[in-house]
């Protein structure tokens, strides 16, 4: 299969025995963790005090960031405005979204930049959720560098499966700001399945039930010969263990005959009492709850009555996802529990009852996501032989385009396996129309106003034609991280526009640059130089790759003018690579050369696949893989 290998060089493993430092990071709402694979086993990396968790908390003072983690939590009561927690909830969100959270938030917000992203007003100035997350990542990175004895080569960072494009992009921006090379954004339930799947070496259908503090995720996967295929994922982004606490607190309030117009202090007291009672009932049959002067008895049966309606809601989501996956509940071989809220016994009972089997929970539900991410990082960085494990994930929410009348036309449906590219043709509405507005949205609803707006751009320069005769092909492409890019092209004239979806809530390019300059201490000076160097390496690589390809198949697959054109563009790239000091300029040229060689690459793959697959049985094929 030499022909195939020649093309897919990225598949080649690095030299043997040269292990790279790769980690998995669970960047959580409440706690974050980092893990790595050591002698074949995924292990959590503890801090110097031997603690696994890094509370996702930061404290700022006039000088800037003063501390993170447990230390930052100590400031929570004394200096709440300068102590940030739960920043994950703000990732990729706009000010208007934050207003919809509908509860008292302990922060003050500064007006966002042009991006409209909320920023926390702290003693150190306005801090964006992306900046704060970057600091958490940097802290975990330092922990890992100490443990592994050097700089990291790459990281897999987990995100909730329901995260939309804006939230994913914000997470990636945070990693970039922390100077981490992101190998992959991985869905949390999928990470958990990997941790269990490789642990139990099980094959078959897996349901991952992930109940956190504020969110619920369900994913249905199939594991066959090391390939994890996500069949469907769903859930409820506004349902979690905190709702259990609220239900219990409300019951306590009634029992103690406290009016619903209680002060925030009393409210907080009730919530705290509810939470600790809930946790106590995972150990004991009954507990006495003290609220001020009063004592209330709460037992498991009463707790069950309070939380059952909420658990039932999660099971309805499970049923929906099973239907999406085309899997019957009896077909599920293993159920995995993830998230702190699955510690509640009642949740375990109901899940076991629904799936008619005992769920797996022998891995710590707080750690399992980071452990799985580390396994994936190890494979992606090339420490394991490549064909051991492969993950095929899906897109959690449909991607669509606005059409006439504020309606959404779905282009990529939810639960489609990624990466994916889909194109659809549209036409002009008026005679002589020369521009077309493309509005990219994400969500399941019919109306644009009910979906999340991701990006808008315009295709201009359409030659004037009668209404309905222009042919505009809009292509959506989602990469393996679940991130979207969109291109629009008028077919008769070839006019084109494309956009990497930098959602309205993400960071503007200028903002990223500025933030990099401001807060990126260890590389402040050599940023530009490093970027240039990276692009030069990239240029060398692409020149080499394409020349090798031309040597091999150029004459067979290209006609004379195509060949000449390709060679000319390579010469231009080489010249620019040797002369320019502007890394962006070089990057643009690389991009254009890469695009120019796409059809050649496509023909080569076509030819290679035909050659490779002809005359072989499948078993032979799989035997070789």
């Amino acid at each position, binding site marked *: 299969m030499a022909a195939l290998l020649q093309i897919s060089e*990225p598949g080649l493993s690095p030299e043997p025995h040269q292990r790279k430092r790769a980690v998995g990071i669970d960047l959580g709402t409440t706690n974050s963790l980092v893990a790595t694979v050591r002698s074949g086993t995924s292990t959590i990396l503890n801090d110097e005090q031997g603690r696994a968790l890094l509370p996702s908390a930061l404290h700022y003072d006039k000088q800037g960031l003063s501390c993170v983690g447990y230390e930052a939590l100590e400031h929570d009561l004394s200096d709440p405005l300068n102590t940030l927690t739960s920043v994950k909830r703000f990732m990729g969100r706009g000010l208007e979204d934050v207003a919809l959270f509908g509860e008292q938030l302990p922060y003050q917000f500064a007006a966002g930049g042009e991006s409209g992203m909320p920023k926390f007003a702290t003693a150190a100035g306005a801090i964006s959720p992306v900046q704060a997350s970057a600091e958490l990542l940097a802290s975990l990175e330092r922990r890992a560098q100490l443990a592994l004895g050097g700089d990291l080569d790459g990281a897999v960072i987990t995100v909730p499966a329901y995260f939309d494009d804006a939230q994913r992009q914000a997470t990636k921006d945070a990693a970039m700001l922390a100077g981490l090379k992101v190998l992959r954004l991985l869905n949390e339930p999928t990470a958990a399945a990997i941790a269990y799947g490789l642990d139990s070496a099980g094959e078959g259908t897996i349901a991952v039930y992930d109940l956190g503090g504020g969110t619920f995720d369900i994913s249905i996967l199939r594991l066959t010969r090391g390939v994890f295929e996500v069949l469907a994922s769903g859930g409820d982004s506004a349902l979690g263990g905190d709702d259990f606490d609220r239900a219990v607190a409300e019951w306590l309030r009634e029992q103690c005959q406290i009016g619903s117009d209680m002060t925030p202090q009393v409210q907080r007291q009730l919530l705290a009492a509810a939470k600790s009672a809930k946790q106590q009932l995972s150990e004991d049959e009954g507990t006495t709850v003290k609220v001020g002067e009063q004592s209330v008895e709460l037992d498991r049966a009463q707790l069950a009555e309070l939380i059952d309606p909420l658990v039932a809601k999660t099971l309805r989501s499970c049923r929906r996802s099973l239907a999406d996956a085309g899997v019957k509940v009896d077909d599920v071989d293993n159920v995995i529990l993830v998230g702190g809220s699955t510690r509640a016994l009642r949740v375990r009972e109901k899940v076991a009852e629904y799936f008619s089997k005992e769920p797996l929970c022998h891995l710590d539900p707080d750690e399992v996501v980071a452990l799985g991410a580390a396994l994936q990082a190890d494979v992606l960085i090339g420490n394991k032989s490549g064909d051991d494990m492969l993950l095929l994930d899906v897109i959690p929410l449909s991607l669509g385009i606005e059409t006439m009348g504020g309606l959404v036309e779905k282009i990529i449906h939810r639960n489609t396996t990624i990466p994916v590219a889909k194109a659809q043709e549209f036409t002009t509405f008026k005679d002589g129309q020369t521009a077309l507005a493309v509005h990219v949205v994400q969500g399941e609803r019919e109306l644009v106003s009910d979906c999340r707006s991701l990006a808008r751009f315009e295709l201009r320069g359409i030659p004037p034609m009668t209404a309905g005769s222009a042919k505009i092909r809009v292509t959506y*492409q989602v990469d393996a991280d679940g991130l979207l890019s969109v291109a629009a092209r008028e077919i008769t004239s070839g006019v084109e526009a494309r956009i990497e979806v930098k959602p309205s809530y993400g960071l503007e390019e200028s903002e990223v640059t500025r933030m990099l300059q401001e807060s990126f201490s260890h590389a402040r000076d050599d940023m530009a130089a490093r970027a240039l160097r990276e692009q030069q390496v990239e240029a060398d690589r*692409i020149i080499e790759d394409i020349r090798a390809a031309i040597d091999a198949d150029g004459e067979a697959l290209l006609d004379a003018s195509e060949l000449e054109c390709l060679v000319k563009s390579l010469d231009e790239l080489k010249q620019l690579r040797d002369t320019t000091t502007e890394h962006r300029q070089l990057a643009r040229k*690389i991009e254009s050369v*890469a695009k120019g060689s796409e059809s050649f690459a496509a023909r080569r*793959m076509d030819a290679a696949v035909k050659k490779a697959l002809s005359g072989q049985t*499948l078993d032979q094929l799989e035997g070789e893989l």
Partner: protein
Amino acid sequence: MPLSKDYFSLFGLPVSYDVNRRELDAAFRALQQRYHPDRAATGSDAQVREAVQQAAFINQAYSALKSPLARAQYLLELAGVEADYESQVTRDGLFLMEQIALRERMEELFEHPHPFDELEQLRSSVEVKFVECEESFTQAHTDEDFQRAVDAVAKLQFFAKLLDQLDELEQDLEDR
């Protein structure tokens, strides 16, 4: 990005409506093991981009062959048949009557004394019709009678939609 003209040969399968699902799944996994962007995670941007396109193409081919309806449509596309399935169906009066009767039964589900039994009956009768359409498609496709094949696909499309709606109805019934 036409990486290959024909999804069947991509997976090493004969061009036919009858697809061995086990072979298709195995070939799909084998191709993704090789071409997925994860295999290029440490590669250059250009390599990653290429891998994304390859993997996307493989995914597209897989989903087209996996679904009976999409597979039938793809076979007609391969045969160079362009069709407007909707106008094709409406000329079949008998089919139209049948369709109206099925819809009426679905609308009455919520008032039905045993809605789940009724739903199961509806589902199995639609499934039987679906299989009948598949058979007539296979026959027409083999005979290269594309008019009949298009007609069968249009009906398949209708029954597939009905089955989806029945799934939704079942959820609504359970949730009420």
